[in-house]
């Protein structure tokens, strides 16, 4: 019974952890929009803008990835069962 409750709570926690995906979504969309604006202003610098945007998107993504890692740990490693 306790095991079942912990497994269910871990699944809910994994779902809640993935709410972290909202932030990077907004941030990456904002970065991509600004990059599109920049390309519109300076089409000749498209390569540089693209490179900068990809690196910026990757850095913005890391908070979402933290949430994903916590969700993966909760789902597949089940560390809380060891506390029983």
């Amino acid at each position: 019974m306790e095991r079942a409750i912990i497994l269910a709570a871990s699944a809910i926690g994994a779902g809640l952890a993935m709410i972290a995906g909202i932030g990077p979504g907004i941030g990456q969309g904002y970065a991509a929009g600004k990059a599109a604006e920049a390309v519109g202003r300076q089409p000749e610098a498209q390569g540089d803008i693209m490179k900068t945007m990809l690196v910026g998107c990757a850095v913005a993504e890391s908070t979402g990835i933290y949430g994903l890692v916590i969700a993966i740990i909760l789902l597949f490693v089940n560390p809380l069962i060891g506390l029983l």
Partner: protein
Amino acid sequence: MDGPKILFRIPIYLPFFPFENGIPVTDTIVNSWLIILAVFLVCRILTHHMQKIPMKKTQLIAEKMVTAIDSLVESTMGSRFMRYAPYMLALMIFSLCGSLISLLGARPVTADFNTTLGWALVTFVMIQYNNIRAHGVKGYLKGFVQPIPLLLPLNIISEAATPVSMSFRHFGNLAAGVVITELVYSGLAALSTALLKIDIPVFQIGIPAVLSLYFDLFTAVLQAFIFCMLTMVFISNAASD
């Protein structure tokens, strides 16, 4: 989702060693060995019988790759850091092959946290080394209490967060691809059993290939590029500011 499987164990027993049954060798390590061997052989073939004026296609391909990475390193880090270009090319090729090996059905090497953590720790050591080299030991230690000494813990955390975030980013992207692909496969199998009433997963043909285009090809190329790019940016930042 399964983690990397232990294929065999190397029977080495040392005192104060955490593995009692010998060193475990996972499929990640074996796949890495295969990639290293393949890349080594390809490099040998490409640089075989080099001439001053290239007449063969293989030498032209090798020169193209070297000039591409040289120009990337020069535009990102400046011409002072050209000695890092070979490492960057090696890292990029290894990361690319390690992720794209999933197209052959093997487990991607970079979907194992140990691989990416190893690379990120190499980057971390290079950042600290370049920082000390540029500012001296005194200037390096002084950098931790800038702008005010109250920020010392935050500075230490932000230094330590660099390898963690780099390794988690690469690992998370590839592991998410593995998890989602597996979920899609099992979902399609259940769907074909429910709709067609047969035990053959018909829907698994073709449909996952579209997802694989994003989760295998696009993610692999992008993450290899970004890992190298961030390594270069961090190193040149550590040496300059």
